[in-house]
């Protein structure tokens, strides 16, 4: 009994540094943010407790539309990154001449500082000087300059394209490492049994990749959900709020208007939203993994 107790104490002692680290880095800011979200904290030196007022204001305002927009934006962006990243990883894993060069060429969008890449995309989307509009016009698909960032619909999809461009290299490299770690003997055995290319992909590659895809999707989901600089630089959340996501709205409230309490309430909503999303997502992935096994 004493041995068990001392073993538990020892285990806690071993965990202590990590616990202190987590409480300091995550726990304290989180609790402080939740606390702030129940106040009217602003530039004023005095802070008053306002109960659920900030949360009521969120749902009274146009926040519902912003939530839906954020979900659509994140879903398409993460979905495209995973799809393109998976295809890219499989292609870069193929035994083709110059494979190393292709792998290196995949990296620039990730290596270039995000603001610089986004500014470059801003000019690409420009109707007067941009290459995309000129190409469309040259191909006869449009009859004049197309300003991609000027209208809600095109601006929304343009920000997704840029986010995908920046995010794909990381997904590709991560999944490439996962593809390379699949034991070769599985493929050899399947090939010996006469399994075709697609069958091998469906029954070996995909199930073996699933945990990596799940991890990458979750990480990408969190990064994408909180993606700020791409939208902010390209559109500032406009035109007419058509590219305003939850994180842009939070920034505008907390930093733009210095309404720290209201901004904290929005940040708590984002945290809750991501937690719930991740919970169901992991449950789904676990279920799919078990079915695959």
């Amino acid at each position, binding site marked *: 009994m004493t041995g068990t107790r001392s073993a538990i104490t020892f285990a806690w002692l071993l965990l202590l540094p990590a616990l202190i680290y987590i409480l300091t880095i995550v726990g304290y800011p989180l609790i402080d943010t939740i606390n702030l979200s129940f106040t009217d904290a*602003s530039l004023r030196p005095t802070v008053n407790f306002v109960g659920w007022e900030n949360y009521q204001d969120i749902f009274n305002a146009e926040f519902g539309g912003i939530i839906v927009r954020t979900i659509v934006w994140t879903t398409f962006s993460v979905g495209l990154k995973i799809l393109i990243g998976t295809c890219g990883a499989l292609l870069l894993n193929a035994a083709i001449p110059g494979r190393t060069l292709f792998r290196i060429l995949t990296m620039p969008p990730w290596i270039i500082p995000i603001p610089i890449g986004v500014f470059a995309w801003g000019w690409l989307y420009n109707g007067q000087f941009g290459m995309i509009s000129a190409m469309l016009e040259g191909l006869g698909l449009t009859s004049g300059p197309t300003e991609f960032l000027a209208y809600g619909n095109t601006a929304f999809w343009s920000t997704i394209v840029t986010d995908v461009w920046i995010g794909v290299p990381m997904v590709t490299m991560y999944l490439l490492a996962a593809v390379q770690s699949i034991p070769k003997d599985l493929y050899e055995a399947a090939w010996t049994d006469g399994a075709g290319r697609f069958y091998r992909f469906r029954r070996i590659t995909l199930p073996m990749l699933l945990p990596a895809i799940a991890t990458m999707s979750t990480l990408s989901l969190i990064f994408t959900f909180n993606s700020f600089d791409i939208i902010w630089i390209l559109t500032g959340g406009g*035109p007419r709020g058509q590219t305003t996501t939850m994180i842009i709205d939070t920034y505008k409230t907390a930093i733009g208007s*210095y309404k720290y309490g209201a901004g904290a309430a929005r940040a708590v909503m984002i945290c809750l939203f991501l937690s719930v999303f991740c919970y169901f997502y992991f449950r789904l992935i676990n279920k799919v993994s078990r079915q695959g096994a």
Partner: protein
Amino acid sequence: MKALSPSVLAGASAVAILAAGLPIGSAFAQDTVIRFIQCGDEIAETYPELIEQFEADHPGVSVEVEVVGWGECQDKATTLAAAGDPVGLAYMGSRTLKQLALNGLIVPIPMTEEEKASYYPHIVDTVTFDGQQWGFPTAFSTKALYYNKGLMEAAGLDPETPPTTWDELYEMSAAVAEETGVSGYGLIAKSFDSTAHHFLNWLYTNNGSVIDEDGNITLDSPEAIEALAALGRMVPVSEPGATAYESAELRALFNDEQLAFLQSGPWERVRFNEGIDWGVAPLPTGPSATGPGTLLITDSLAVFNGTGYEDLAIEFARFLTNPENQFAYESVHGLTPLRPVPGVDELVAEDPTWKPFIDGIPNGGPEPLFVDYRGFQDVMIDMVQSVVLGEATAEDAIATAAADLEEYK
């Protein structure tokens, strides 16, 4: 040699830090360091010498300048003050002064009648709230209309006769668009602060206003509706997709001779490509105008509350912005002069392109002071975009904006 344990190293470091800190604290206990946040990439050219002079005149006082990029400097000064660690003074957009004042973050500036009278008309209004001044104006800009003479000529217009009214501006822009195939007018409607500024120029050239001295929203007026409707009328003769354009992008179009008329500040005079034959004229006026007008934008030196040396900071700010030092600063940075000092006549004589920027001042209007300036700005941007995108009439957009502004005043 035996390695030191981490705890011993940590203890030794703490003792070293304390020991190093003690003499510093005691040696400068009686001195005052004025912390000054200046926006930009480098310290203003005229400041080092002035700071040296101020320090020499005030033994025991030193000035510590922190240069912070334009994107972050105002937020930094504000959040430092809100966090209880204010700097002595900072370069702030005058539009933020009401918000800072109402939250007790800055102190009022005692300005004599003589001091106020030394500025051009309405300049002091840009820093006045509740009957008091809250900053020393230090950077000032007005707007005028640049025009490309070559494009005007190609469109069959007289390049020496720029538009003077909104109707003329529309007609000339339409002629350029039709005859040359390039955009007539540079319309700013991106989700960016310059969209609000752009509309205010239209408003102030039609005798309109946003808010009065008593804090009543006055936007919902025939003058404002005329201004927004006229701006909306310019859409077909402006660059396509105006909601994606702000000043920098329009400058690129003007430089590429893809734009005939551009509303902007005096800084453009030295930024246009060589070879472009351009002119500059006062902003065209609307039907209700009583004279030339422009938006008057000032940035100020604001003195923060809670440093313990507020009076000294005010004295330093006053010194930096006195007529002589201020004019030297303006000359170096190409800013519109804040005061009608003797050097202004020389400036205009040497370079007549300054004239339209100075002529509009008497009928100009200040950036409106709101408690939540960013809220005000977002309302203005949404109002302009709704009309430019054809999603609302000028009447409806103005009425909606006027109602929304109540929340931010």
